[in-house]
């Protein structure tokens, strides 16, 4: 199903008069308000201590080593016990903007914090930079464990087809511990496509001449049995077209149920930073995509930013 992608194909719905959420949002489930009134302290190697007080369903008081402030937050659950908390820090594209993505378990002590930044490198202002930090909950400043979550190669050699909408599926391929690929698509245009759909379709056709298949920088973390985090940043795409690429997709994969919840983070065309909750059901595929025969990594990262091939 992922092999044929039809730009501008409307989601057929004879019942609802509203437009479907579509995109990566269609099947994402709602945010949780379970954290309201709760408090948790953490220590992350290389990052330091943070303390969070969820004052209500929308706001969290975040204390770091030198300052504290209240921010809006969004929380979703990856499984029955695991939370993903997103805290957006900073307002404008001119100054660096940071998104904290905190993953922790309501029972187990280990936690992971992904710090993602826009505007850090002014030569690439719309490219996300992202770093994971591994740590633990603390009580009165005392770490609850010396154990840490960490990088994994468990997904290497596997692939998952994600069903984003009734019309769209995407194949995520995990060829190494530092790269992620998408299965190859054949692009089509719906007969009743809008002008924007047509422009997007033509851009993809044009991009494919210089960027023949999607391979991007990634990292993979094992959170616990059957629960993984992976992050993909569109660095290659950004070098090709900074206005269309450069975002980060972060996935919390429940490998037992084969569904994910996660978020995208990047710069909008209006130069505002933005994150969105996304998710999908999926299935592991045993069938290799044709691009898996190409050695990985394929693209160089020490070459001219204008020449990715």
């Amino acid at each position, binding site marked *: 199903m992922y092999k044929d992608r039809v730009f501008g194909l409307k989601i057929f719905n*004879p019942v609802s008069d509203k437009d479907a959420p579509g995109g990566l949002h269609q*099947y994402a489930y709602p945010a949780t308000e379970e954290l309201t009134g709760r408090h948790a302290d953490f220590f992350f190697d290389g990052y330091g201590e943070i303390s969070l007080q969820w004052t209500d369903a929308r706001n969290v008081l975040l204390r770091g080593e030198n300052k504290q402030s209240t921010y809006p937050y969004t929380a979703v659950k990856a499984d029955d016990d695991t939370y993903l908390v997103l805290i957006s820090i900073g307002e404008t594209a001119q100054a660096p903007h940071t998104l904290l993505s905190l993953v922790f378990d309501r029972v187990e002590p280990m936690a992971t914090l992904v710090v993602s930044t826009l505007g850090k490198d002014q030569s690439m202002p719309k490219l996300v930079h992202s770093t994971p930090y591994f740590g633990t909950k603390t009580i009165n400043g005392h770490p609850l464990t010396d154990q840490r979550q960490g990088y994994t*190669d*468990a997904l290497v050699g596997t692939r998952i087809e994600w069903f984003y909408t*009734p019309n769209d599926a995407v194949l995520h391929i995990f060829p190494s511990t530092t790269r992620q690929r998408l299965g190859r698509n054949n692009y089509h245009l719906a007969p009743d496509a809008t002008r924007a759909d047509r422009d997007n379709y033509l851009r993809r056709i044009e991009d494919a001449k210089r960027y023949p298949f999607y391979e991007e920088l990634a990292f993979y973390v094992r959170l616990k049995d*059957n629960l993984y985090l992976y992050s993909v940043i569109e660095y290659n795409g950004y070098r090709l077209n900074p206005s269309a690429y450069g975002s980060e997709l972060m996935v919390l994969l429940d490998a037992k149920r084969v569904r994910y919840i996660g978020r995208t983070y990047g710069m909008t065309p209006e130069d505002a930073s933005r994150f969105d909750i996304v998710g999908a059901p999926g299935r592991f595929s045993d069938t290799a995509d044709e691009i898996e025969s190409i050695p990985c990594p394929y693209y160089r990262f020490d070459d001219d930013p204008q020449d990715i091939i």
Partner: protein
Amino acid sequence: MTVKKARFGAMDGYREPLCYELTGRAVRASDNTATWAFQTDEMMTVNGEATPWQCLKLANEMHLVSLPERRVALFLDGAHGRFYRLSYEEPRMETGGLTDSRGVGTAEDAPLRLERLVGHALRWRLSCDFEVIQAFPAAGTHSLSGSLQAPASPLDCRPLGGDHCVMAFQAPLSQGENSLVLMFCDLCALRAVGCRVTAAHGNHLFSAYGGFLREDG
């Protein structure tokens, strides 16, 4: 090291994370026939009697609660101040008003025109290896199978407000046992949460992700 590909049973493979938002809250039927008090993440009381519970969240203030020991599925629609209850002993959906709800329904919250379902079919994915086609051949009926030509059976389908609706129906199991299903759908996002209630095998919460079949196939 390789990833484990262990799988759940077909029906609850895609089940979304359990929701504990109701813990610490109590809601009451407006006719005073029932009070549901969610004391801990695992235990609640129904009119003062303790029983285990589990919950899935369809949307803000819309929660599906499974009471497995009572063989009951309960939907608390705090957004519109109503509850819906299906019991294995009385296989007919009951509904009533809620007090203490945090109603968020608005004047624009017009209900779905469910008569538009007639003549259409939804393909629901429930796990990576299980999907079902729910066809609506006539008002008040549906068929559940991999075939649009399957015999139709009764369906109690009601609009809730916005793009949400509730469905209650019987679904025979392969062993000949009957089961009841209470299912809440967002027919814009084409996402649903449900609870199957059986006599011998307990309750099963599930999530489903759908798409209408196009008339051209």
